[in-house]
């Protein structure tokens, strides 16, 4: 009987105890807190051409405020064209045009009554290669947009604030009068970000902002993107898929002028819905 009594203790199905401690699955970490707010940018049926070349085919997507969206895809897929439509830089190319609806806070940016120059104050851009004004000092580079746009106020304060926002202040505060070209490539890129931020844009477009930078400068830019996200809506075009995965809340995959899939970055990189996205992120193209 003793054997029976001892063994009965063992009888209950010995299911793993840890199961009992399992917590409900946490909500996706990448979902921006602002997901429920009205979209900052709403793109509907956006088409773009270079002459007769139809470069973007009816793109529809929505970008929530204070979030980062990454656009990925092979060369020529339309991701940079898409970005350049958002501040109407696309139309600066001879023969290029865009059609559709591009709503920034509900206002159509492609409307005839919209002044592209004042639009670009609201939608700033950072380019692939750092392009500070070579003849200007660090201070004057940041203040350049303010002067060009006739923005008054205490420029020194604005310069300090934006240099702090772009995580450059501590590195340049003692040499604001030095030439911008005295800075390293990574510092120059952060200077360009400061210059874009000085005019207080609402949206920041970044076209391969770190592709010309070394890994440490790249990490600083990526860290900066995380910081800036609390105030700005950011769209970044990148060939570096790991970078898209690291910095963005949502990822949009473009292929041959079509927006194939857009969704939470975590989903795009772990379980995309479209086979073409899957093939691209796993390296099965070409």
């Amino acid at each position, binding site marked *: *009987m003793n*054997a*029976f009594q001892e*063994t009965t203790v063992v*009888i209950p*199905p010995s*299911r793993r105890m840890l*199961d*009992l401690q*399992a917590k*409900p*699955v946490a909500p996706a970490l990448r979902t921006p807190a602002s997901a429920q707010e009205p979209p900052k940018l709403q793109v509907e049926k956006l088409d773009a051409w270079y002459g007769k070349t139809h470069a973007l085919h009816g793109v529809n997507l929505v970008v929530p405020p204070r979030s980062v969206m990454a656009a990925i895809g092979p060369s020529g897929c339309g991701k940079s064209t898409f970005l350049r439509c958002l501040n109407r830089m696309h139309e600066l190319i001879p023969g290029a045009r865009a059609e559709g609806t591009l709503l920034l806070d509900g206002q159509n940016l492609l409307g005839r009554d919209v002044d592209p120059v004042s639009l670009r104050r609201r939608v700033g851009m950072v380019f692939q290669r750092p392009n500070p004004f070579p003849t200007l000092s660090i201070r004057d580079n940041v203040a350049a947009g303010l002067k060009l746009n006739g923005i008054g106020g205490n420029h020194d304060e604005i310069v300090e604030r934006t240099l702090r926002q772009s995580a450059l202040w501590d590195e340049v505060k003692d040499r604001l009068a030095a030439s911008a070209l005295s800075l390293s490539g990574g510092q120059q890129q952060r200077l360009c970000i400061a210059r874009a931020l000085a005019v207080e844009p609402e949206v920041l477009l970044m076209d391969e902002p770190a592709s010309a930078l070394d890994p440490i400068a790249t990490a600083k830019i990526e860290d900066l993107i995380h910081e800036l996200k609390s105030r700005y809506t950011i769209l970044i075009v990148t060939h570096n*898929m*790991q970078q898209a*995965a690291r910095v963005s809340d949502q990822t949009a995959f473009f292929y041959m002028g079509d927006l194939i899939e857009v969704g939470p970055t975590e989903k*795009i*990189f*772990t*379980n*995309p819905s479209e*086979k*073409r*996205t*899957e*093939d*691209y*992120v*796993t*390296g*099965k*193209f*070409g």
Partner: protein
Amino acid sequence: MAPETHTDKVYEAELARLRERLLEMGGLVEAAIAAAVRAIMERDTPLAEKVISSDREVNRAEVEIDDMCRRLLALRQPAASDLRFITTALKIVTDLERMGDLAVNVAERAIDLTQSAPLRPFHDLTELADLSASQLGKALDAFVERNVEKAEEVIHGDDLLDAIYHRLFGDLLTYMMEDSRVVRRGTNTMFAAKQLERFGDHATNVAEMVVYMVRGTDVRHPHSRGADPAPVHDA
């Protein structure tokens, strides 16, 4: 538009090698559990000893597969289905290694059982063993074929395995209560049966990971996620 294979052929080959190595390891474990049960049924000590020594190969495979996965994660930064495949490999290699240990445990009971007279024919042990081994075989097939339906069959099949185990447990208890001289042999048999039941649980784990690998959805512990009432079985 896109080919079915990776543009980088070396990466493609590395993934294929990982898949092959996992299957080889699965094959070793399948053979080990079948041999361990045969050693009990046929009272074959040399066979049991062979099972025990063959576990080294299973362990080596585990270390090698872990290393392959780490390398792939570090050097290839896999995404989407590749990422799910490699993380699945990392998970199921642990299950397979543990299943190898369970086969060793069964083999050790076989050696102990052959020291004394046969208990009495226990066909249920064969039934349990066959079902456990077939659960693993099916889970590995599901893995190779990326077959969710087959994986789900394994997950549901675990209930039958548990039922057989509990019936056997009851039979053995009754038998030992009737005759205290068989307690040692009965306990050994019961212990072997428990290993087979656990073996089936690990096969279920493998099958659950196959569902994740193919669909990207985690089907483990459905009753521990808050929505459902208390589980009957939550493998």
